[in-house]
């Protein structure tokens, strides 16, 4: 496997030039910083990923790696201030959303790209009924009458398998169980039939048994509607079943991107390797869990060179000086490590 092709990433459109690529949604060299009292936190430092129709991209990474901030920037719900986009593009159907008018961008929300959040209890408005919050979209965005909107909303609640949808229409979010609330959230996000759905840790707040049900539901709806799904998670276990591709984030960068099976079989970055090793395996029961040593870097002061170098078991002198670019590793995968080939070919 020494003939792995190493080349600068040069997919059309993914090079910061803004040329159309025919892709559904692409984040291109995105940069975001938070200007806080403690200083400037460089939270997103050149993130590039994309998702096409009918495809599931899992975005993986430790807490604080910038998964949610990337999603918030795509949706246009970044807290500004303190958050500022300092570079890059977010293209939907080839058009940069960061430079279009506020009105144009608003129309994409819900209809083009929708989002579901981790904590459905706080994401739903506590003082309005679930039905109201779903029907609202049909009324405001589609101009439907109250009764039509209600009918469509009940259909949506049925779609996400909420029992007795008609009766639940007038219930408030706090009257739902956690799983039901997340189902309602999914119903709400799918109301306008979006092309892309971003799910930011949709199951983290739920019981384990409910987690699986919600993931199944999401996967099923994604397949039926041929949506592009961006699934944000730090749970590697969930990913294997549902994702087509995986993008691994570290300190505001994509450090590896690959098809699921390739990545699981032969990770191309020491960080990914560490993540995979940290999943407890059945045959390792009782053994100590292998975790990545050290803590994620402070984003106020990101390490020089490769940001992972203070924690990397394979670190070399060059790693402290040169930032490894995200390089194509042949096929469909890319890694941002000076020694990507060695990682893939280890053993």
């Amino acid at each position: 496997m020494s003939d792995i092709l190493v080349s600068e990433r040069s997919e059309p459109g993914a090079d910061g030039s803004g040329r159309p690529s025919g892709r559904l949604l692409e984040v291109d060299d995105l940069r975001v910083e938070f200007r806080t009292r403690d200083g400037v936190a460089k939270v997103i430092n050149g993130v590039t990923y994309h998702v096409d129709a009918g495809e599931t991209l899992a975005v993986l990474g430790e807490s604080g790696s910038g998964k949610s901030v990337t999603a918030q920037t795509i949706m246009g719900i970044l807290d500004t201030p303190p958050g500022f986009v300092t570079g890059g593009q977010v293209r939907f159907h080839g058009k940069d959303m960061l430079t279009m008018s506020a009105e144009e961008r608003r129309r994409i929300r819900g209809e083009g790209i929708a989002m579901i959040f981790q904590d459905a209890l706080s994401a739903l408005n506590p003082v309005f009924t679930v039905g109201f919050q779903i029907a609202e979209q049909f009324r405001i965005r589609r101009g439907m009458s109250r009764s039509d909107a209600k009918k469509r909303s009940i259909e949506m609640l049925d779609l996400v398998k909420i029992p007795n949808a008609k009766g639940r229409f007038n219930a408030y979010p706090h009257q739902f169980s956690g799983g039901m609330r997340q189902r309602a959230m999914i119903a709400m996000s799918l109301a306008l039939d979006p092309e892309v759905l971003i799910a930011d840790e949709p199951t983290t707040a739920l019981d384990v048994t409910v987690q699986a049900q919600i993931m199944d539901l999401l996967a099923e709806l994604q397949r039926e509607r041929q949506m592009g799904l961006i699934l944000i998670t730090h749970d590697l276990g969930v990913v294997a079943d549902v994702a087509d591709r995986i993008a691994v984030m570290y300190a505001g960068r994509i450090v590896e991107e690959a098809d699921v099976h390739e990545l699981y079989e032969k990770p191309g970055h020491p960080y990914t390797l560490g993540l995979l090793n940290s999943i407890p395996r059945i045959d390792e029961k009782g053994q100590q869990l292998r975790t990545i040593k050290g803590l994620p870097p402070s984003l106020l002061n990101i390490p020089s060179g490769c940001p992972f170098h203070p924690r990397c078991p394979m670190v070399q002198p060059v790693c402290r000086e040169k930032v490894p670019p995200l390089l194509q590793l042949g096929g469909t995968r890319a890694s941002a490590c000076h020694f990507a080939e060695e990682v893939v070919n280890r053993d």
Partner: protein
Amino acid sequence: MGRYLLRRLLQLIPVFIGTTFFIFVLVWAVPGDPFAGKCGDRRCPDAYVDFMTDKYKLDQNIFVQYGSYMKNLLQGDFGETFGGRSINEIVVNAYPNTLKLALVALAVEALIGLTAGVLTGLKRNGFLDNLVLVSTLFLIALPTFVTGFVLQWLLGVKWGIAPVTVSSDVSFTELLVPGFVLGSTSMAYIARLARTSIAENRRGDYVRTAIAKGLPMRRVVGVHLLRNSMIPVITFLGTDLGALMGGSVVTEGIFNINGIGREVFRAIITKEGATVVSIVVILVLVYLLMNLLIDLLYAALDPRIRYE
């Protein structure tokens, strides 16, 4: 809901009795002879003293006095002043004026305070925000009589665009300036309360969700944000009605409004205990009922709150 209401109404009874008794004791415990100066320079005739003593049970202990007073009160009789004027008449004449004044004040403070609070809460640290912060600080720091006299002189005397004093009709337009004066301090508090509440809720996850749904900004703010942010403000407004009515004495004095503030003031000076108690008792009732109303409203605004 029905049971809750009944329980709350029943709870009002001991509170009502407690507060009114307290006021009763305070008023009648004011040292001094209630007949002093009532009959010109001379001592009052014995027949008159005997009659009033009997009517108000002045020779009995305070509990008997209170009991007899409450008995009459429950029959709708507030009694008479020592001069023989019907207190019912005083109450009927004065209360509507004060209520009108307080309602105008409430409307003014809600309208201006809320607008200022919402606008500054949405856009903090701008010019408007600083303007509102400084002016509200000003209003909070200034005593009502200063705001009152300054506005009366400026608007009424110097520029002549508002009546200097209020006529005996007490129309709502005449009450605009006095209402503003009376409500000015609360207005400042409301502006700040609304500002904080909006700014806090603006970062709320559910606001993000509303934006992510592609709703127009107008609707995100006007429906989703406002409804949640208004809960503390409405509570404040509700309890403020009683406070405004009770605190109207200075404003009524400045603008010559014949309201309860002036009547109470006069009654205290002339030791008309029965008048003072009557007016204050109604005020207590207003407070208690408004409180109940606010609790009901609170639950209507926030479905997470249940009547228990």
